[in-house]
């Protein structure tokens, strides 16, 4: 009983005429002298006292709570919009410019809704289908639904506490208005069109899925020429900096998810590079996007810059950058027309910037060291000897030392990564269930798991596992002076390169091609990567880079072969004639 709080109520009691009020637990006034409880309750002034959502619902007025348990009426596309919103917000905190959200992604999404006929068009799908559904049924539900013509606007971007911010995405008018819903339509899903959405199969329409949200993000990043590659984006997802798995748990509380929504929004797999890459092209084509802004030499995505970045990442000498630039120039992979994504072009395909840059580095390593399990070691011997005798000089790059340092670091990283994968907790705090019947079971199960986890968490090793990593485009940190993490950036390539006239050439004049024959069929694929056919050094290099980008080794091998194909065009045409020889002399 809170007498202090009841002071402002000054009316006399209807039974004993006293003015002495207390507050019941429910917030109603009761007379302290005769214990008569009134119907009057204390006005809520402090809005913080009751859950926000309730207030939002009242304030908004547009949302009608259908039944106590039901939550708001919402469409599947609003769910995706919400996920996109979260992701782009996360990207913003990672340092991406605000235009990405307000202009680029917003427009892409608008265009998507339009193209998929969900909104911004005359006859949106959701409305059409729902009406049809309703026509088929007896109209029993209609009397209880008087607001058939009520205005329904999409709030999902605004819901997330950004009402005050007048940014583009937040103020989007969502014209799925006057949609009439039947109660039955959502029996097997929390969203209005969940069931119908999962059944929808229209030719030529790219249906939205959770992985495709990442494709949308990447498209916007690419449009903005941001300093984020696709592998970076996926790594940020993996490290939890960008919402993806269980992104639905940050939906407003009133957006209930169950039944078919589970199949649409619950994700139990990591996004893969190839998959998202394909989806991105698919969406760009579907949206009919014009040619993307040019990727010029000063862009982050240009191979020259990316090569530099990856050289630093894997602790290779800076001097190698000259060589990578040369290879880029000779192969023509640095040209604007080659690099710029043009979805309308006949064969829409974009460059896998990060994979390509890494492939260039692999080719350069092969040029320098041949990587035949032989030459690289003998070169290391000479470098080692030289370094011992000339301690004052700039050290020469010693492949063996580099290998030892890298092997150790990458093994540690890999182990850490595998451990994190094995320990990853997939299930959301908000359990998903199929219908309201097994709701209780789902919640109970969750409670049980949490309970057991709590019990075992006290038994876990007290040494805290490395906390959440700060987002960074670099995974390694090479410091000068640390013996275990020797930094090779400043080492010279003297001894591997030699002066010939005015230009430098590699001492090694041999080369072997990663792929001798390309698939003749229309797929234009390279032959598959059978690890055991290759030298151990090559395997190590490929594994190292594939792990950095979290891609399959065969994927990188393929890219290396493609670079080689461009670099040795003439040789390739020769090898076709006499394919038995694989080693090719080469000078440049």
């Amino acid at each position: 009983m809170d007498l202090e709080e009841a002071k402002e109520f000054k009316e006399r009691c209807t039974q004993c005429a006293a003015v002495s009020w207390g507050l019941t637990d429910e917030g109603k006034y009761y007379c302290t002298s005769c214990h008569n409880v009134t119907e009057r309750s204390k006005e809520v002034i402090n809005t913080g006292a009751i859950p926000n959502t309730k207030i939002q619902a009242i304030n908004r007025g547009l949302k009608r709570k259908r039944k106590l348990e039901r939550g708001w009426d919402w469409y599947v596309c609003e769910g995706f919009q919400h996920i996109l919103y979260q992701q782009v917000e996360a990207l913003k905190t990672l340092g991406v410019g605000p235009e990405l959200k307000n202009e680029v992604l917003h427009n892409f999404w608008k265009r998507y809704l339009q193209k998929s006929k969900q909104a911004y068009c005359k006859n949106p799908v959701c409305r059409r289908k729902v009406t049809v559904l309703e026509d088929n049924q007896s109209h029993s539900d209609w009397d209880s639904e008087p607001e058939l013509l009520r205005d329904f606007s999409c709030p999902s971007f605004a819901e997330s506490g950004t009402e005050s911010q007048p940014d583009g995405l937040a103020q989007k008018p969502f014209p799925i208005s006057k949609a009439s819903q039947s109660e039955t339509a959502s029996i097997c899903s929390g969203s209005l069109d969940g069931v119908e959405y999962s059944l929808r199969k229209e030719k030529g329409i790219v249906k939205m899925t959770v992985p495709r949200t990442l494709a949308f993000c990447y498209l916007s990043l690419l449009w903005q020429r941001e300093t984020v590659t696709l592998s970076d984006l996926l790594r940020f997802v993996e490290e939890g900096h960008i919402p993806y798995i269980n992104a639905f748990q940050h939906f407003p509380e009133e957006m209930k998810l169950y039944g078919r929504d589970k199949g649409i929004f619950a994700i139990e797999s990591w996004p893969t590079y190839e998959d998202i890459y394909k989806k991105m092209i698919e969406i760009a084509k579907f949206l009919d996007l014009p040619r993307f802004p040019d990727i010029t030499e000063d862009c982050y995505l240009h191979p020259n810059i990316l090569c530099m970045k990856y050289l630093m990442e894997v602790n290779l000498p800076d001097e190698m950058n000259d060589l990578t630039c040369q290879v880029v120039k000779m192969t023509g992979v640095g040209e604007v027309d080659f690099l710029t994504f043009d979805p309308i072009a006949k064969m829409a395909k974009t460059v896998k910037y990060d994979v390509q840059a890494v492939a260039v580095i692999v080719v350069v390593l092969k040029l320098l060291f041949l990587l035949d399990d032989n030459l690289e070691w003998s070169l290391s011997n000479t470098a080692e000897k030289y370094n011992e005798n000339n301690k004052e000089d700039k050290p020469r790059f010693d492949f063996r030392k580099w290998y030892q340092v890298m092997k150790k670091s990458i093994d540690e990283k890999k182990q850490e990564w595998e451990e994190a994968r094995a320990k990853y907790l997939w299930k959301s705090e908000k359990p998903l269930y199929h219908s309201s019947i097994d709701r209780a079971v789902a919640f109970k199960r969750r409670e049980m798991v949490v309970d057991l986890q709590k019990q075992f968490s006290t038994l876990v090793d007290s040494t805290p596992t490395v906390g959440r990593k700060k987002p960074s485009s670099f995974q390694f940190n090479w410091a000068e002076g640390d013996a275990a993490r020797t930094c090779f950036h400043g080492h010279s390539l003297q001894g591997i390169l030699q002066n010939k006239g005015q230009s430098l050439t590699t001492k090694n004049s041999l080369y072997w091609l990663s792929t001798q024959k390309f698939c003749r069929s229309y797929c234009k694929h390279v032959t598959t990567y059978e690890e055991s056919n290759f030298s151990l050094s090559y395997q190590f290099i490929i594994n190292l880079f594939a792990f950095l980008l979290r891609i399959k080794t065969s994927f990188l091998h393929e890219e290396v072969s493609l670079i080689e194909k461009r670099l040795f065009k003439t040789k390739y045409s020769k090898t076709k004639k006499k394919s038995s020889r694989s080693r090719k002399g080469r000078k440049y």
Partner: protein
Amino acid sequence: MSDFSEELIRSKTEDDQEESCVLSGTGMYFPWLQKHIDTVETGGKKEKDFAQTTSACLNRIQEALLKHQWPQAAGYMHSYFQILEDSDSHKRQAAPEIIWKLGSEILFYHPKSNMETFNTFADRMKNMGVMNYLKISLQHALYLLHHGMLEDANRNLSRAEMWRYGEKSSSQEVLINLIQAYKGLLQYYTWSKKKMELSNLDEDDYAYNTASQTMLNHSWKTSVNLGALIQTPGVWDPFVKSYVEMLEFYGDQDGAREVLTNYAYDEKFPSNPNAHVYLYNFLKREKAPREKLISVLKILYQIVPSHKLMLEFHRLLKKSEKKDHHKLGLEVLFGVLDFAGCTKNITAWKYLAKYLRQTLMGNHLAWVQEEWNSRKTWWPSFHFSSFWAKSDWKEDVALACEKALVAGILLGKGCRYFRYICKQDHQVLRKKIRRIRKSVKKHSIVNPGL
């Protein structure tokens, strides 16, 4: 018990709506088809990463357990619990048992774990679904027993005994019997403690009466608890032993005999040497006729020819009047010495040396030859190599002498073992060795003339 278990079972059908489509019209269920459909649904992907996480996690827990890295195992366990929320209902239902087994192992050994954490964990797991309640209760009780908490163990068993779910299935019945039997075993323990106290009391003492009364009380309850289990086929050695002890104590010899006979001879029970040992010991205590004792040991001989009771069996057979018993006596001795574990058993060798002479004197060369034929290829190197001669002589001269005698009889004077022992010119044993030479000359089955 929360009503959750029922919900769990019921929800299974609702949870797997997609799965139900695999049920073909005839009501047949094809698990492989389900898998196939799953891969189609996920766009040809074989396994979701969630499944990869859980299986990798399981592997790592097992590895950590093998290496006794309890905190690491607990860390992985922490994440493995999410399998309880797996959308694959088969995996989800198999999970509680796996979790219980791994989790209890971790909690048993983990330095930071204690009785309380184990109990909470056990109680949690018991009530997760209905399939594991009895099993976990029993194992929980065993854990408590291990930590000397007899009272708590007993309480746990009683609770489990009362527990019922649906119709009593056969697997449940065995478990319930087992639970009751363990309860009985605990009561036996109290009983035998009381018995000890009683033996220290004076019979005229007032306390004696009350003590014997409570004892009687306990024994009655115990027999009820143990009785049911013993009826079902299985190996129940500790239960049978304690049950028989109580029956004997109260003079119910017939009851005890019946239990033991049943335990030893019922064909439904798995072959169990101890069953025959118990019966034999009981009959010996009862002073049963020799004939009967021999028949019991004959079966034991067939199951375990190297059992330590075999020498006793040999003595019984020797005393018997029947000729085939005498022959069997020889067989038994040879049989015992076939086993590597008995090679240094001096009594066995002594018996064999003595009995060989006796048999040969009784003109039963054929018996000896029959036994020896199957062994003459491997016994010489198994028992009578010069290596054994040296080491036996070094370790146990008496054993060496007995073996030398046997070797001489079976292999003749030329045998290495015999020659080595005879060459050892030992002051004290000179006489004995001379005697051995003599009897070898007399009895050796190998005719030097041939």
